């Protein structure tokens, strides 16, 4: 467990390098089974390794993605079924090495699980399309790349942020929190050992 914890803390989380600046305000449509949803005009920065799409499902179906440039597929992504989230992150294979304008197309498993496409209103020309039919707007897309900072190196920032929007406020809250967690685990292990004896 300690080794796993160390590994997680030393891992660098992916970071958002840019987005298409669409603010999510509404559901654009349901993502029908057997449909292809495409959104053109996405300018991916260099070293993009994943895309985070504003898809919402309670228990999401498998979703596949094709990223194309000049009519050629340059990267693909896939996420299996069973995800829960207000967005879906799809890893790109291979990663995007140089900045370029691309067209993103999504397909989903043909099962009856509801899946919502979320985003904001836009002109018909810029709108995302379902089977070439324009939607009322565009989806939000965030472009992610590999992070350089481990969770451990971000600890101070995270601690400071944990102290905001709470009572009691202040980054110091992390110290008693860690102490309580440690005491709790210690008590559990002690009880386990005592009862085993």
């Amino acid at each position, binding site marked *: *467990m300690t080794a*796993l*914890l160390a590994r*997680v803390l030393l891992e660098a*989380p992916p970071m*958002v390098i840019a987005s298409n600046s669409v603010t*999510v305000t509404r559901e654009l449509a349901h993502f029908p089974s057997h449909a292809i949803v495409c959104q053109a005009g996405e300018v991916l920065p260099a070293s993009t390794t994943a895309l*985070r799409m*504003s898809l*919402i499902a*309670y*228990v999401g*179906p498998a979703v596949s993605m094709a990223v194309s440039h000049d009519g050629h597929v340059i990267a693909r992504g896939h996420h*299996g*079924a*069973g*995800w*829960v*989230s*207000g*967005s879906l992150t799809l890893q790109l294979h291979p990663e995007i090495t140089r900045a370029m304008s691309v067209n993103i197309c999504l397909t989903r*498993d043909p*099962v*009856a*699980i509801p899946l919502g496409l979320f985003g904001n209103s836009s002109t018909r020309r810029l709108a995302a399309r379902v089977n070439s039919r324009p939607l009322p707007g565009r989806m939000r897309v*965030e472009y992610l790349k590999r992070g350089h900072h481990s*969770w451990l190196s*971000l600890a101070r920032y*995270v601690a400071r*942020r*944990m102290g*905001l*929007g*709470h*009572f*009691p*406020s202040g980054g110091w*809250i992390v110290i008693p*929190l860690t102490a*309580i*967690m440690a*005491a*709790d*685990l210690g*008590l*559990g292990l002690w*009880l*386990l050992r*005592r*009862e*085993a004896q």
Partner: protein
Amino acid sequence: MTATVRHLLRSVPRAGWMCALIAILNALCWSIITPPFQVPDEPDHFAYVAHLVVTHRLPSSSAAEYPLEEARTLTALQQGNLSLLPPTGTISSLAQQRKLEQDLLPVARQSASIGDAAGVATSQPPLYYLIEAIPYALGSGAPLLTRLTLMRLVSALFAGLTAMFALLFVREVLPDTRAAWAPSGLCVAFAPLLGFMSGAVNPDSLLFAVSAALFWSLGRAFRLGLTPRRSAVIGALVATGLLTKLNFVGLVPGALIGLVVLTVSASRSSRSIAYRALAVGAGIALCPVVLLGVSHLTTGRSLFDASSSEVSTVARHGSLIPAINSTWQLFLPRLPGMKPYDPGTFTTREIWFDGFIGQYGWVETAFAGWVYDVALAPAVIVLMACGAALFKLRAVVWARAAELSVYASMAIGTAAVIGSAAYFHPEAGSFTQARYLLPLLAMFATVIGLAIAGVGRRWGAVLGATLVLAVMADDIFSQLLVISRYYG
């Protein structure tokens, strides 16, 4: 009476108190980690308490309109964005914090503007909210976030009761497997979903505690026999549960069947005492229903308006068979010939198992898929060991079949309540969240206990320790997941 309570408290083993303390500390950690109002329906439950304290009346509208102070806090905390868009974190700058504090100050001074609404909480009975009114009132001069913290602390105490009663239930049903008691209690105390829900303002926290206590009281009566006093405890717990949350209704038929089975058993030695016990228990249990009837009569409402509206809802859907079919598929794999209700979803795994392992926030914060795959391994081992124990103890199982069927009927009742709500009221939102099964935590603890009993004395200690460590790991990584989601 005091002597009885003192005797009961003394009869709780030290492991029970320790599990209670551990569960409270765990829920306390969760209450610090989880941002305000990022637990399902917490804004609505908070609004209920605010309404109760300010107006001394129950809310009557289920509109999602919050008191002015709460509405401003939710806006300042970007609650809507946070709950809908996982990539959005909590407020991140001192400037935002100062603005939040400034936004709250004027409202604290002016007379609070309270509507008549508490969202989805409006239909819930008042007991939990009456208890939470105490910390709310104690912090009435303080900003809203202070009151929320105090209220979350009270909820955390219920996590302790849940873990303690789960351990005590295991002790009653597996009295000869002492090695199983503490690991079972610890698995409940460290269960991350229990900590998450009990670290928030939500009547589920009290519901879990009352449900675990009800299982314990039934288990005790089955082991020691029914007396009027034990029956009164069962009845009081049923009444408390009915006053806590509507979902508790699922446990009631099973509990009443339990009382009848216990009465039949007790009548073999003394018929009069057995029937007196039944009358006492059932009488106390049904008090809330009588109170509700009296309240409806005095306010001029139809005596059966709630139940008649449910009956008309069911009638609109025609046959009950599709509802049973849908409920079955909500929990178990579809059988051949059944109409598919959730095609493409293995609900047993993706809703209930994955949800229990870890889905947080507004059920949008989850681990990567492989974590749930890994968690399947210990779950399968536990189920196999549990099956082995039941086979090994088949003579005992047969002798205690009536008792086991009571617990089974309580589980079926809970599933039926969730399934029927999901089928008949799909518009009311999602009833398919793993937390709705936590009233059965005492049974979860028993499954752990049986698994430990099933592998024998030598391997039992190893399995117990492994399972507790696994649940601890789930808890730690769940807390880290939530921290990374909101503050990373």
